[in-house]
């Protein structure tokens, strides 16, 4: 009997506890307080250095603007998109400003989550002259929906120790892609049973090489990934076939690298098992703990002195669709603060992401920075890919390369298949635009 009474009490306590706790919420209401203070919410995905930096920035902003309060909420990266999608269903708890990957903009806009950047904040012309060129790749009918604090570009990393070990000059990274291939072959090691022990070049599809192919190799070989209006996929031109074949053969013929070597290309590099990779400025943070000497330089070109290209990407801040009145004013002021040069410098120093404004991009001191220089110099020739459906297009691309790598499909046929799939996706998207 004793046990049962105990159980009954536990149950009662639980029920009462639940009712009480339902009141235990974090009071984060985004409303206007009585004394004319406006509260707005800022959402981004959670990453320690960004969160801390944003908190500092908010403190600074609130000190200069005592009538505005900014609530900063963050979410795990994997679920960020669903969180935004769910939140937009509910008029009460919506954030005013959300940070998003550029590739999500088309989807968010289609779902009606965002409003165009108001002219009071910045007109389209002002945006185009203030920000680095890659911002122009994400406009919709001439309008912009989100503005970045920082951007990323791709550059070329190499492991100096592995170079020295093989008798190569560790301070002289390859300048052209042919040189890359030659060096990679020297630095690739297989053991007797055919297991890859060391990869010369961290070839991959799920990492940055996807972007490398589309915005760098393709262009340097003379082609381009999409038509200027982004409607048509033009990867399978003659130049395209050549670039694709050259790039795929690094894996299939020369075997200097492959997907899945030690998990992912960046882990293999950080483990000191891959000699060279194409990667973004976001890799610099992890390299702080590297146990080897490494260097970073601008991406190679097809020929000495040939055309330079790189891929740029960014996370940007947009205002959600239902914001108006005083909250819209407050949001505009906060955004203005976020995209100022001061904020960008702060961000560079504390988060390690390169600035998005032209003035900073052309600053000679930054351009010659030993760590960031290569990335910042790349800003002037970086292209941001307009994705109609980022996940879907990447899937289509991987399916094609898998056909080649796993099933030995013909390069031309595979590239044609990729183009067909992506074209379908774009046709669907643009049929509504």
């Amino acid at each position, binding site marked *: 009997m004793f046990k049962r009474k105990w159980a009954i009490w536990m*149950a009662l306590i639980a029920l009462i506890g639940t009712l009480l706790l339902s009141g235990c919420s974090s009071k984060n209401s985004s409303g206007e307080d009585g004394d004319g203070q406006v509260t707005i919410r800022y959402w981004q995905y959670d990453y320690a250095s960004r969160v801390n930096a944003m908190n500092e920035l908010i403190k600074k902003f609130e000190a200069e603007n005592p009538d505005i309060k900014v609530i900063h909420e963050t979410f795990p990266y994997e679920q960020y998109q669903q969180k935004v999608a769910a939140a937009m269903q*509910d008029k009460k708890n919506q954030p005013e400003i959300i940070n998003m990957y550029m590739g999500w903009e088309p989807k968010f806009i289609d779902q009606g989550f965002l409003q165009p950047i108001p002219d009071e904040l910045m007109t389209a012309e002002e945006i185009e002259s203030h920000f680095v060129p890659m911002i122009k790749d994400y406009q919709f009918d001439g309008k912009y929906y989100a503005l970045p604090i920082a951007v990323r570009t791709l550059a070329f990393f190499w492991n100096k120790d592995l170079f020295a070990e093989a008798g190569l000059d560790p301070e002289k990274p390859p300048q052209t892609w042919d040189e890359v291939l030659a060096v990679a072959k020297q630095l690739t090691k297989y053991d007797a049973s055919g297991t890859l022990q060391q990869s010369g070049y961290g070839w991959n599809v799920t990492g940055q090489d996807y972007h490398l192919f589309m915005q760098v190799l393709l262009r340097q070989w003379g082609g381009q990934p999409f038509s200027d209006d982004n409607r048509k996929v033009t990867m399978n031109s003659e130049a395209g076939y050549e670039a694709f074949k050259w790039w795929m053969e690094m894996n299939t013929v020369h075997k200097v690298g492959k997907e899945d070597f030690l998990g992912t290309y960046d882990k293999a590099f950080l483990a000191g098992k891959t000699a060279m990779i194409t990667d973004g400025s*976001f890799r610099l943070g992890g390299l702080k703990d590297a146990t080897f000497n490494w260097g970073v330089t601008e991406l190679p070109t097809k020929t000495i002195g040939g055309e330079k290209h790189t891929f740029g990407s960014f996370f940007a801040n947009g205002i959600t669709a239902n914001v108006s009145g005083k909250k819209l004013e407050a949001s505009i002021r906060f955004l203005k603060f976020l995209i100022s040069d001061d904020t960008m410098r702060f961000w560079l120093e504390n988060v390690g992401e390169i600035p998005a404004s032209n003035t900073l991009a052309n600053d000679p001191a930054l351009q010659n920075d030993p760590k960031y220089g290569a990335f910042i110099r790349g800003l002037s020739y970086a292209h941001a890919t307009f994705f109609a459906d980022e996940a879907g297009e990447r899937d289509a691309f991987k399916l094609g390369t898998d056909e080649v790598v796993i099933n030995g499909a013909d390069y031309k046929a595979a590239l044609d298949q990729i183009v067909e799939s992506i074209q379908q996706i774009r046709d669907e998207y643009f049929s509504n635009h």
Partner: protein
Amino acid sequence: MVGTKTKSKTGQIIAHAILMLGTISVVFPFVWMILTSFKPLSEIYEFSVFPKHWTLDNFKFLLERTYFVRWFGNSVILAVIVTISELFFNSLIAYALAKMKFPGRNLIFILILSTLMVPTEMLVIPWYKLASQFGWIDTYWGIIFPGLMSGFGVFLLRQFMLGIPNDLIDAARIDGMSEFGIFWRVVLPQVKNALSALAVLVFLGNWNAYLWPVIAINSDKLRTLPVGISLFSAADDGQQWTLIMAASTLAVIPVIIVFFIFQRRIIEGISITGMK
């Protein structure tokens, strides 16, 4: 070998041998997870089993520089509440379905069972709409309300209650006991083992629940453990594996405690007297 203890020594030795062999494969990832929590970040890329430099930094970071303790506390409170709720309601429903007669019994059973057939991923947005209408977003109640009862628990307990001989229940009815009394005093003790198993499973399921808590919570202080841990995996910036493993190691402790509390009851035999 069946339900009765084997007397023969060889039988015992063989049984132990088989079980020990399997132990290695079963325990290895778990041990590896624990060992990795003691590794510094630079070693994560070395793919070795034992740390070269043992460090407590990961744990220190978790306990001092994140809200880990709060997440832990939230998870404990919520998991306990949901477990109690499920144990109570699921058994009540199961009793009605297993031992009471009424029109529509089978239909209701199938109906409840069918609630298991729609993946929660698709229910998350309707739940969000519902919760935000009532202002439950970012509250404890908002996190737990979908899990107060489940078709899974109902099904399990129903099956076990089916195995209780009806004579026992009929006798109690004749004695004039109320249905609730029969449920509470006669039937529940008979399914102690299933209840204990369910307690462990519900606690565990709730402890690890991720998708809905992520959607239902906005503020860091309210986060549950799995949501908090996923913060360490971010985008291109890379995943801080040592932190994830350290957090997962600590997260496993309450589950093990719950398991040990209940595991005896799960296997304790019930002596049924008065049976034909």
